[in-house]
């Protein structure tokens, strides 16, 4: 028997092996419902009870408690991502020596209540789903206002939103007044349809790839399954079939990568503000209405308003010899958001065919409902008096009063930071309508509005100006198109044989994997929102064996440095087994249905509190004095580890006193404004504009920030359960020589002198600011020498680069 044949049995290819393998797969531990295990005998923290039993079995003695300084540094970084401030360290040391437990519990509560808690844990969540603010792929365009999702995540962790609710909102927030939460679904990279060329096969493939990104996000982050492995064939290791993959993809068929106005509940501040602003818009419009038609500039499009009129057809005649228009919409006074021009409503469009140079840019582009580069482009022949025009014929008479026209609305609303901000590729135009009687009449001319009306009536000009300001204010402060996904009409989903969109096979109904009792009682007729809502119900059902386990494991990973299951995104057969299965299950059970007083179901903060209250968390990280080091997974000590890029950068800025620690909002930008097809270039990664916490640094796919990318900052391409920790000479060079490091060393030195005076006091202050401790006599002497001969900034530079600064004690 050859080796390959032998393996084919494992892979379920042999008839006998198949049955056995399936049974084995169904029995896989993580697919069984969570049952609360009995707590081991003894008092104290349940975490210690489980860990202690294993330590006892293995006869591994544990370390004593960490000193108070290490402890405050450790717990501050784990909970908030920021090292403690010197004054807090001093106070804690005092309180701790008086009453250790009380001091520590108070500190934990303080840190959990800090608004920086949400920033720290949001960072972990964004890592998990490889969230970033550019597309990756062609042009790697910026995703405008994607950051409203980051704000949502930070807010959710700070509010301690129950995890099941957090998950629901991210899957179906559009139905829950939390439209910003669906940024989750479009966190991954994507290839825009417009950039894969003209071949239908490539366009279909790109859509399938985008769906796969959504599948990977959902599968890895919420379920801990590698669902992507079932895209082309049944999963090789887990009982997930190719049908499961496509059935689950049907749940998300209404999602497309793009922007929309997030749905907000009435209490949302943006919602309230926009109501005010829209009131003012209406006021200005009333002024204009009295004196004739008018035009509004909304940045991404222009809107022409005129008195309501019944029309069977509309003709727009342009004054410029060439035009580029991606969409032309017509609205009436009735249903104000119903676009009557859409081809799908039966409206026919025509224009001067001889003026179109490229078959891709036919007139039908203007009423196809698609914004972006695929536009109608027409050019009149040289020296001709002819001008481009468009004629819309409705299927029946419509009452209309408004026309909206744009050149590339997608670029305006979905991206930013391009040198060529799309303006309008048309100037003035006239609108005529044909009544039911067949007669044509002119309803507006933009030239006349400007020159015949606005210029002659100051009140009109003022109102138009005010409207432009309001449009801008709405864009900044109101709900506005944000990169949190857009909705499309879901198509019937079919299994794609071998993963190829060119080989569609049988229809599948939206459902979760069969092995996980994933029937959602849905059909292809159900709306996308309903599909996602049902899926959300299923995934957050306490009977779901994965959801709680996967999240508890993530929390554990970020508290202790490694998960109970080290492959945090893979709880399948190819993933690692839990080091402490009963502990994991007990915690998962407790997470969903707490048995301890005061604890709330699905409370992330309560679970973190439980973990950091354990003796295991409070242990010293010192290595064994001699002999073999036991496995750190047993937690006989707190395993020391290198802190992440963010903690290094934030910690330095905090030490220098330059950190702007305001919460939320727009990202700080380190890159240039670029040409559409160019690569982003880092232009300023150190100036005052960047002195915010690094979670607010624009996450750019494919961009090396020239300092912290080298510290395993994720490239946000593939989902990753954890960041690798590597050590490279580039890290050393960046932290020694980058302008950021050099300038901050100066600022820290300056601050130390300002706060403590010159000499030894200043050196002591630098140690406090960066290492939370006093220097010993040797260190003080050495540092005084360097400070004297070279400058205090060189002492700071060395401290910033020290292992003590870079490792969590």
């Amino acid at each position: 028997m050859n080796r390959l044949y032998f393996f084919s049995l494992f892979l379920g290819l042999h008839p006998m092996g198949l049955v056995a393998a399936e049974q084995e797969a169904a029995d896989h531990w993580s697919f069984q419902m969570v049952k609360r295990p009995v707590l081991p005998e003894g008092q104290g923290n349940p975490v210690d009870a489980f860990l202690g039993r294993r330590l006892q079995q293995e006869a591994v003695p544990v370390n004593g408690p960490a000193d108070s300084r290490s402890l405050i540094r450790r717990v501050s970084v784990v909970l908030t991502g920021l090292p403690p401030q010197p004054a807090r360290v001093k106070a804690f040391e005092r309180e701790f020596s008086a009453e250790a437990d009380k001091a520590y519990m108070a500190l934990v509560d303080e840190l959990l209540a800090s608004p920086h808690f949400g920033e720290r844990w949001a960072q972990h969540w964004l890592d998990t789903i490889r969230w970033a603010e550019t597309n990756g792929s062609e042009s790697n365009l910026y995703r405008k206002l994607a950051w409203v999702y980051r704000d949502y995540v930070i807010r959710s962790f700070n509010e301690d939103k129950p995890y099941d609710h957090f998950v629901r909102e991210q899957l179906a927030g559009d139905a829950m007044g939390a439209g910003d939460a669906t940024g989750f679904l479009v966190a991954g990279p994507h290839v825009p349809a417009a950039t894969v060329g003209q071949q239908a096969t490539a366009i279909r493939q790109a859509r399938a790839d985008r769906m796969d990104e959504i599948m990977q996000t959902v599968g890895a982050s919420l379920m801990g399954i590698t669902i992507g492995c079932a895209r082309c064939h049944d999963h090789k290791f887990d009982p997930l079939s190719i049908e499961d993959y496509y059935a689950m993809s049907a749940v998300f068929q209404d999602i497309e990568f793009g922007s929309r106005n997030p749905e907000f509940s009435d209490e949302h501040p943006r919602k309230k503000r926009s109501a005010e602003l829209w009131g003012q818009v209406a006021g200005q419009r009333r002024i204009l209405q009295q004196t004739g038609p008018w035009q509004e500039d909304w940045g991404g499009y222009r809107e022409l308003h005129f008195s309501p009129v019944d029309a069977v057809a509309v003709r727009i005649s342009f004054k410029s010899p060439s035009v580029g228009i991606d969409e032309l919409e017509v609205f009436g006074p009735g249903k104000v958001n119903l676009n009557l021009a859409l081809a799908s409503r039966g409206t026919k469009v025509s224009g001067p065919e001889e003026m179109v140079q490229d078959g891709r840019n036919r007139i039908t582009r203007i009423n196809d409902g698609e914004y972006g580069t695929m536009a109608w482009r027409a050019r009149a022949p040289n020296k001709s008096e002819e001008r481009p025009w468009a004629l819309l014929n409705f299927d029946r008479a419509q009452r209309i009063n408004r026309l909206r026209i744009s050149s590339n609305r997608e670029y305006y609303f979905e991206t930013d930071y391009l040198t060529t901000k799309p303006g309008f590729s048309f100037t003035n135009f006239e609108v005529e309508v044909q009544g039911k009687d067949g007669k044509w009449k002119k309803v507006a001319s933009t030239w006349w509005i400007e020159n015949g009306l606005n210029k002659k009536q100051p009140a009109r000009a003022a109102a138009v100006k005010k409207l432009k300001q309001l449009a801008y204010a709405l864009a900044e402060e109101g709900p506005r198109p944000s990169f949190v996904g857009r909705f499309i009409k879901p198509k019937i989903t079919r299994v794609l044989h071998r993963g190829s969109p060119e080989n569609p096979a049988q229809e599948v109904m939206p459902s979760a994997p069969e092995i996980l009792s994933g029937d959602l009682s849905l059909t292809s007729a159900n709306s996308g929102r309903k599909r996602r809502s049902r899926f959300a119900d299923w995934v957050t059902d306490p009977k779901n064996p994965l959801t709680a386990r996967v999240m508890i494991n993530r929390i554990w990973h970020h508290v202790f440095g490694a998960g109970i299951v080290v492959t945090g995104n893979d709880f399948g057969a190819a993933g690692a087994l839990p080091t402490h299965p009963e502990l994991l299950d007990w915690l998962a059970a407790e997470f969903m249905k707490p048995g301890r007083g005061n604890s709330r179901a699905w409370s992330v903060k309560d679970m973190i509190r439980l973990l950091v209250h354990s003796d295991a968390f409070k242990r010293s990280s010192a290595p064994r004095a001699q002999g073999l080091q036991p496995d750190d997974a047993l937690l006989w000590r707190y395993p020391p580890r290198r802190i992440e890029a963010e903690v290094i950068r934030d910690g330095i800025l905090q030490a220098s006193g330059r950190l702007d620690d305001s919460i939320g909002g727009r990202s700080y930008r380190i890159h240039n404004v670029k040409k559409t097809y160019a690569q982003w270039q880092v232009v300023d990664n150190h100036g005052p504009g960047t002195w915010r916490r690094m979670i607010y640094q624009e996450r750019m796919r494919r961009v090396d920030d020239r300092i912290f990318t080298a510290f395993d900052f994720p490239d946000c391409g593939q989902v990753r359960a954890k960041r690798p920790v590597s050590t490279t000479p580039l890290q050393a060079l960046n932290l020694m020589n980058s302008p950021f490091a050099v300038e901050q060393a100066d600022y820290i030195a300056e601050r130390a002198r300002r706060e403590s005076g010159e000499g030894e006091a200043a050196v002591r202050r630098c140690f406090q600011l960066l290492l939370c401790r006093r220097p010993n006599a040797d260190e003080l002497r050495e540092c005084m020498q360097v400070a004297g001969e070279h400058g205090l900034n060189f002492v700071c530079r060395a401290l910033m680069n020290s292992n003590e600064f870079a490792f969590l004690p």
Partner: protein
Amino acid sequence: MSAEKISPIGRGLLNRRDFMRNTGFALGGLGLADLLSAEDPVNFSGKSSIRPDIDPGNPYAPRPPHFVPAAKQVLVIYCPGAVSHVDTFDYKPQLEKLHGQKPPNIPAVTFEGPSGNIAKPFWEFKPRGQSGKMTSELLPRLGAMADDFCFFHALHTQTSAHPQGENFFNSGFTMEGFPSFGAWTTYALGTENADLPAFVAINDPRGLARSGKNNFGSGFLPASFQGTDFNSRNPPANLNRPVNFTAADDKATVDLLQRLNGRHLERFPGDSNLAARIASYELAGKMQTSVPEVMDISNEPAAIHREYGTDQGSNLKKEYAKNCILARRLIEKGVRVVQLFNGSDPSGGNGITNWDSHSNILKTHAMQAEIMDQPTAALIHDLKRRGLLEDTLVVWATEFGRMPFLQGNGTGRDHNPDAFTCLLSGAGVKKGFSHGESDEFGFKAVKNSTSVYDFNATILHLMGLDHERLTYYHNGLERRLTNVHGHVVKEVLA
């Protein structure tokens, strides 16, 4: 052994011991221990993975290949934008005959739009060298070296879009986030010269290629294995001592740092992560000397400068020629992987900054060729003259080809994913050899058709690595450069 070191799939297999007992499956004489060894995880191919034993204290230490390699180092010359095979190395006399016609079977629409009529090569083809290989006048100097080259004429790829094409060629996947070829190779092999980065990406003077950092990134591998990017003009970021600091300032900082770290290490004796970080500062210090040294091409003889062409032609060519000299110096110093780019993203407009040539191919390809031909030929020739090709594999590559017909009857050619040409030269490959054929138009690969997986598998093979056994566990799979595909093209091995 910590849990982390065991491959999850290896562990998964261990769990199956029970399954086999329970099913009463007879194992016969099979070496169960061998198969179920925790050190010997299993990947898709059914072959066991070979996991490089990486010392965290020295991730770049040289590591043994899987078998005796033909090549110890590799130089990849990458031409973003898609070089037209039918105008360079893939001679199709039929195009002359059918010039201006539109034979059946030509699709109505290709990547950028409607297809036009067949266009004969824009440059004349001539026989070269002993082999009489027909290559065009566009690249006369490279053509003159045809006897040293091993051409792949039947390559095909998975995409018609540049960024995905670059991703696919350089990381084995069209999607984002996978480790580059150079990262895989240094992950496996480390490097011989501890004073220089193991993997250097020499970017075009005009900037990064379309996929940017993906082409030399580490993806989900540790950041240690990402390419360090610099060229003859720009050193790696933050390499140099800050301008206002003296050497004494720098030394004082480093000395103080080492003392601080030394004392800290006493509290954590034997902690390899701390020791590794201390070592990384020493290596950084060495790089501060060795990198400027290797970048300084001013003391190369005038004849070398002339040969590479740093002194004549367009400014871009002169800059690229300097990068070529740098590439040779890096290979000479033992750098494991050097990736040299000839072209950048098209920020300057269509076809201006790389090989993309949808219109006016006569001008755009000629401009690129002027930059590439002489310096690249000189580089390969120089490596040969110095005997470096004994141990070095040279790869010349692009992401796809161009169409044998015009784009919309304009003046350029659209993307062709179904046939294109790349070449190998040097250690381990046949000389003056051509593998595979495209059809009579150069439209589709027809004979010995070669996927990018096959091509990458072959390069890894030449480096002594089995592409099916070089893996890294990531999200449920032992991932490979070649996904679950690829066959070594044995026909080209010398």
